């Protein structure tokens, strides 16, 4: 029975900083340390992106998050025919060590934490980062940051995969074990629910699909000879935050508790960090509307609020104009200010898990744990995350949920202001960021010049070492670092891998 107007509370098991971490992984949460404000940014040339990074850092951002363009994320050079039209569009174009130097010009790699959204060619991009740090004399053990390095969700929802599952996962674990030895402060994987949620799955499916993938990576790392405490503390997670505030807050709490339970059950780690779910959150792109776009700023603020109430470790707030095109400097700035207002004005940072103990939040949290566990069991019974990806199960789950959601909106069961509620006829004029088409031409011309200036024999030799490592199964990281130092490009390293590993098309789930 629901009693209207009655204050409703419930006791919560455990406190923040204590297992099962339902209330948070740190006892003091934001009282001790604010979340990292980390805006995903990158467009056009490395120099222009560097300028945007400097602006964001001057504006009070505390970490860097690199958005790469699609050719880079798929391991193609800018001068590849297939890259035409895509160079520098959704992120910065990185072909070589020359570009990576420019990207981090004037930024101290020893003190900044850098997150790179890079998956299929994660080994190559991390190698470039390390190569530049080596040149500058920044010790490898001081490097801190994250590579996303989560290939399963690429097959499932994001679509930026290159190689078949098995060799892809081998690259994932190569990177993990290399970092363990060389860059102990580097987060080697960011297991991502974000893109699956954006592609249409529900909050509980976001938990279950993400944690199933994470468990798969743990098992693979252990198969490769690592111990749970050697890599799990450096695993992080990445979630979306949508509009249903209570459900989203509960989702983060549920994910934390469930991950703790799953890791303890299966791996019995000794390090408590191994079963703590640390996560980055990004506000939702798909909830943003092209209609009445300024409303999106309000959506972003509520979503950011939910992420903070849910205890996120870092946050990206979207720009209000992303349903229309690429964000401008002004809209990106407003997005960052949204976080700063939350941190400095709202007062929510002064308490830990402020919604914990609310009847509705606690029962939602329980419900989400239960629902997610059920889907995780289903995936287990079909042979685990990778087998299910090959059969298209997760893709199908997501497509079905996306279909149900659009039907709810179209029947008016779910309201979207500006779309099926309070809509207006006139659309406001919108000035989005325009990428100068000359930027692509210049990038391609620069790359061609760069390739001509290299010592081709050295490049060939270095690439043949990469090929050898790919074939004989030894760790690929050092050969790639050597190759990119000798000016081999992202496209060249990955074309070696395409040649050795082949390519694959994941089932679409429809």
């Amino acid at each position, binding site marked *: 029975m629901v009693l209207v107007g009655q204050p409703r509370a419930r006791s919560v098991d455990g406190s923040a900083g204590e297992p099962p971490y339902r209330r948070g992984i740190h006892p003091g949460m934001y009282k001790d340390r604010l979340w990292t404000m980390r805006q995903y940014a990158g467009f056009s040339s490395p120099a222009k992106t560097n300028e945007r990074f400097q602006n964001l850092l001057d504006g009070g951002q505390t970490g860097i998050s690199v958005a790469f363009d699609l050719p880079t994320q*798929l391991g193609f050079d800018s001068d590849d025919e297939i890259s035409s*039209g*895509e160079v520098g569009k*959704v992120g910065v174009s990185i072909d070589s060590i020359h570009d990576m130097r420019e990207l981090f010009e004037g930024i101290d790699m020893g003190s900044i934490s850098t997150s790179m959204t890079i998956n299929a060619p994660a080994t190559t991009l991390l190698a470039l980062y390390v190569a530049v740090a080596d040149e500058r004399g920044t010790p490898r053990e001081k490097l801190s940051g994250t590579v996303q390095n989560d290939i399963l969700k690429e097959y499932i929802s994001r679509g*930026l995969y290159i190689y078949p599952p098995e060799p892809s996962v081998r690259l994932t674990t190569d990177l993990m074990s290399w970092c363990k030895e060389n860059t102990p402060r580097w987060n080697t994987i960011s297991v991502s629910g974000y893109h699956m949620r954006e592609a249409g799955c529900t909050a509980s499916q976001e938990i279950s699909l993400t944690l199933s993938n994470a468990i798969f990576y743990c098992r693979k790392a252990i198969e490769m000879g690592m111990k749970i405490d050697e890599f799990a503390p450096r695993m992080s997670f990445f979630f979306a935050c949508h509009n249903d505030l209570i459900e989203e807050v509960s989702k983060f709490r549920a994910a934390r508790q469930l991950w703790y339970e799953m890791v303890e059950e299966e791996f019995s780690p000794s390090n408590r960090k191994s079963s703590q779910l640390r996560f980055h959150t990004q506000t939702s792109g798909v909830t943003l509307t092209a209609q009445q776009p300024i409303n999106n700023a309000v959506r972003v603020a509520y979503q950011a609020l939910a992420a903070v109430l849910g205890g996120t470790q870092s946050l990206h707030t979207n720009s209000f104009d992303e349903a*229309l095109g690429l964000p401008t400097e002004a809209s990106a700035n407003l997005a960052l200010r949204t976080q700063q207002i939350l941190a400095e004005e709202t007062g929510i940072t002064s308490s830990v898990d402020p919604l914990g103990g609310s009847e509705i939040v606690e029962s939602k949290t329980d419900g989400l744990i239960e629902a997610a566990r059920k889907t995780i069991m289903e995936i287990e019974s079909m042979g685990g995350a990778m087998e299910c990806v090959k059969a298209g199960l997760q893709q199908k789950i997501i497509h079905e949920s996306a279909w149900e959601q*659009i039907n709810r909106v*179209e029947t008016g069961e779910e309201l979207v202001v500006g779309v099926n509620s309070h809509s207006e006829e006139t659309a406001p004029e919108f000035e989005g960021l325009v990428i100068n088409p000359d930027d692509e031409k210049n990038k391609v011309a620069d790359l061609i010049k760069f390739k001509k200036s290299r010592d081709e024999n050295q490049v060939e030799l270095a690439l043949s070492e990469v090929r050898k490592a790919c074939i004989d199964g030894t760790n690929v990281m050092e050969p790639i670092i050597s190759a990119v130092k000798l000016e081999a490009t992202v496209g060249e390293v990955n074309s070696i891998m395409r040649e050795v590993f082949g390519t694959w098309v994941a089932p*679409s789930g429809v």
Partner: protein
Amino acid sequence: MRIVIAKPGLDGHDRGAKVVARALRDGGHDVIYTGLRKTPDEIVRIVNDEDAEVLGLSTLSGAHDSLIPKICQKLKISGLSNVVVFAGGIIPDRDRSDLHNSGVRAVFGPGTPTSDILHFLEEVKSRKNKHQEVGVGQDPGWHWN
């Protein structure tokens, strides 16, 4: 009608393409979904071999300005001028007129009800029946939006 829904370019976001494909199927059409990352040549080949009457192109990476005109051009030189082309995804208003000039008959942004696309197709069909020109390489006078 036989409709090809294609993803040109490199972006991997196909939530919209798959949902639209399904809505068109439920609207009684035969829909062929190409999967991700198709080049203009591949798309034209698929449209030809499948003898599609309509081609829907979904892109979210901002590469529509170069890719879509390229595909339209290739359709025209491959004897596929009567194929009806529409586009969807994140396409700023300022780019619409260029797409219309290339022969694109409709552009659907985020939040478009799927019924709008079905209505567009009905309109296309009735214009075709009246022998009015709606194909990518035909008189560009009419566009849906």
